């Protein structure tokens, strides 16, 4: 490839020494001012300019044996795409990413790169890694803005029909792959918009919905049929899909939708929400624009969000944007254990979110009308290391205190939706409520021809992991359609 030489030149541009410490610092992401953005729903990060992208790409050493790709759950050829940015061939860079990932504009925004590709980037050993995610986003946005690129072509029709249950990241990825392989794919989505967590969960200020719509449209142009408002298990069972509608295989990726609550007193008071409800109202239903949009949302002054993941950060930052004076994160473990991305935690802090760490809620306090008036909490301390060396948080007796809040958003996680199990005989369920599979690679359930992946198998995970599962599922479905082989427990 002729680009390779150019890439080498770009590397030498860094002072001509091989493997020398790059002089160009990691390019900061332009952002809206924290005080301004804490009051609006526009995207927080603005994306690199072309100049910044080129500077950042120039930091990539184009390693002979790159580690970055090993850190990517879908194995994007990162070295090559950054090389293509170095030579300003942005559309080819995007095409390179799309060989492995359907949703670069999404993943460039929401992937926990610092735990994946950027973590293993050789530059991170001595300093800051290449900002791979930001570059990924840059090329995707470049194409969106300037056009170009092609709709991927599908192989000759195989004559096989596949049903995908759930139009989230996993389902969309599987739909893409299977279509490219030549199969006819129908995606059944329970909600009135495709995108799953990308549309109901992740807020506009972190992932503009127009991006998701754009990606979904590409799939439709490729020939994927997306049926909205289809609650599989209700309007049709899995068995009906296969026996009556002639689907040769089904991929279930309907997510781990059911929100968990804490089981403490007062959880059904008015003003206690699941993060799913709070975010669905705001994101999917656009309640932040009520009454222009018909779905209402309460604008609380003091809000406690229980949990420490990205969803909790999304909820607490949404609360701020809806006008909260005090927005708290209440998390029972230490700062190091916050499951949210570092960037999201920092963004939240800059915007004025108050963190109550090593604090566990004990009781939601209510007034006579049944509304929340406070959250009683207890302080935790790290106990002695257990056998695994972990120091579990232990309640400090007598340390109870009350947080004066008028709303509590519970964001401790989700479990599997019981709906499909109610109407799908033979679909095995694990002790923890998820769909039982042979293993996460093959995605084969206990029911022949039925595959499952994403959160409904693993529990709450990331967008990229769900996409990875979609990819594995597609591969294994394709194989199954050829061999008809199944497994037995």
């Amino acid at each position, binding site marked *: 490839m002729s680009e390779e030489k150019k890439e080498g030149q770009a590397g030498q541009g860094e002072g001509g020494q091989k493997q020398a410490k790059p002089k160009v610092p990691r390019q900061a992401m332009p952002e809206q001012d924290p005080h301004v953005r804490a009051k609006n729903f526009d995207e927080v990060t603005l994306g690199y300019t072309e100049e910044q992208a080129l500077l950042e790409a120039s930091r990539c050493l184009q390693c002979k044996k790159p580690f970055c790709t090993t850190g990517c759950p879908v194995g994007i050829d990162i070295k090559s795409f950054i090389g293509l940015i170095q030579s300003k061939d942005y559309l080819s860079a995007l095409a390179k990413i799309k060989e492995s990932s359907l949703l670069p504009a999404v993943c460039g925004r929401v992937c926990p790169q610092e735990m994946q590709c950027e973590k293993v980037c050789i530059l991170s050993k001595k300093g800051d890694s290449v900002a791979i995610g930001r570059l990924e986003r840059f090329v995707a946005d470049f194409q969106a803005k300037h056009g170009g690129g092609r709709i991927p072509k599908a192989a000759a029709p195989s004559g096989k029909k596949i049903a995908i249950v759930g139009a989230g990241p996993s389902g969309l990825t599987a739909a893409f792959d299977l279509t490219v392989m030549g199969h006819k794919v129908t995606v059944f989505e329970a909600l*009135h918009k495709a995108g799953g967590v990308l549309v109901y969960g992740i807020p506009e200020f972190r992932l503009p919905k127009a991006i998701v719509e754009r990606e979904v449209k590409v799939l439709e142009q490729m020939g994927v049929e997306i049926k909205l408002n289809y609650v599989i298990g209700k309007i049709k069972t899995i068995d009906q899909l296969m026996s009556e509608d002639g689907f040769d295989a089904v991929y279930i990726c309907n997510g781990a939708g059911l929100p968990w609550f804490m089981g403490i007193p007062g959880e059904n008071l008015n003003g206690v929400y699941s993060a799913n409800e709070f975010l669905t109202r705001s994101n999917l239903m656009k309640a932040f624009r009520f009454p222009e949009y018909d779905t209402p949302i309460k604008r609380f002054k003091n809000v406690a969000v229980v949990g420490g993941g990205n969803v909790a950060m999304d909820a607490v930052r949404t609360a701020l944007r809806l006008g909260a004076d005090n927005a708290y994160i209440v998390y029972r473990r230490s700062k190091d254990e916050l499951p949210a991305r570092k960037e999201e935690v920092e963004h939240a802090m800059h915007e004025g979110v108050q963190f109550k760490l090593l604090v566990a809620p004990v009781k939601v306090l209510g007034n006579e009308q049944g509304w929340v008036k406070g959250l009683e909490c207890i302080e935790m301390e790290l106990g002695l290391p257990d056998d695994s060396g972990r120091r579990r948080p232990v309640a400090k007796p007598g340390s109870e205190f009350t947080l004066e809040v008028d709303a509590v958003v519970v964001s401790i996680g989700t479990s599997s939706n019981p709906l499909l199990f109610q109407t799908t005989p033979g679909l095995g369920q694990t002790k923890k409520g998820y769909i039982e599979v042979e293993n996460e690679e093959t995605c084969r359930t206990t029911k022949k021809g039925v595959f499952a992946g994403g959160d409904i198998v693993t529990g709450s995970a990331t967008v990229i992991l769900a996409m990875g599962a979609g990819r594995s599922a597609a591969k294994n479905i394709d194989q199954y359609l050829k061999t008809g082989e199944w497994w037995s427990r």
Partner: protein
Amino acid sequence: MYEILKKTVWSAQEPRITEFVLDAPEIARAHKAGQFVIIIPRESGERIPLTIADKDAEKGTINILFQEVGASTMLLGSFKEGDKLMHVAGPLGKPTHVEKFGTVVCIGGGVGIAPVHPIAKAMKDAGNKVISILGARTKDLLIYEDLMRKASTEVRITTDDGSYVKKGFVTDELKQMIEVEKIPVDLVVVIGPPIMMKFVCKVTEPHRLKTFASLNTIMVDGTGMCGACRVTVGGKTKFVCVDGPEFDGHEVDYDEMMARQRQYLPEEKQAADICRKKLCHSA
């Protein structure tokens, strides 16, 4: 898009009671008594849960009935025959448990009569003797009388103001049946305002009379994702959309449910005022 094939205004008195027959063949085919749909009338619309009041599986239609009490239902009421609703999702919720119980009393209060209708029908089809008690504030607000007569072995009617048949509440009639007439009853099914369901359960409880209550709570997605519809049943939190809508009436915490129902009253009022103005302008 789902076309409104027929629109019936049951009561022109405000808040109006309106019924649509919708073209929704797949939902009609899959529907079982007790299930509901979520309707989004327009792009910026709310997800409105409404119980399926009747269906024609062959024609591929479902009937929904609603009282125009808030902005969203007022907006829905402004739709005309031939108009199309943006989204309809369903059927949702667990179907009613139907079997031959013996004598089943089906109680509907106000617009709650509509969702009781398919249950009465299914119970009768299953070989039960169905005695229905219909309650309305006044004669003009009584709906589905003829349909309920078809779906029941016997129909009793009460009106709060005595303007039709018997003055009183459904609870009075129920007490009369089981305590005075001593009619042996095997099951009671009740749908209506929470306070009415609570009182019906108070009547049946001392007789250890099994009572199903079908709950109508606030919902957003209606598929188990958000928990807006949660209620305490037998001390445990349940989701009406996936665990219900039908529960053992004696175990439901109605007081909590009533408080939760009132959550968005100020917002609903604000939206209704705006909607009223807009609809007046467009009219």
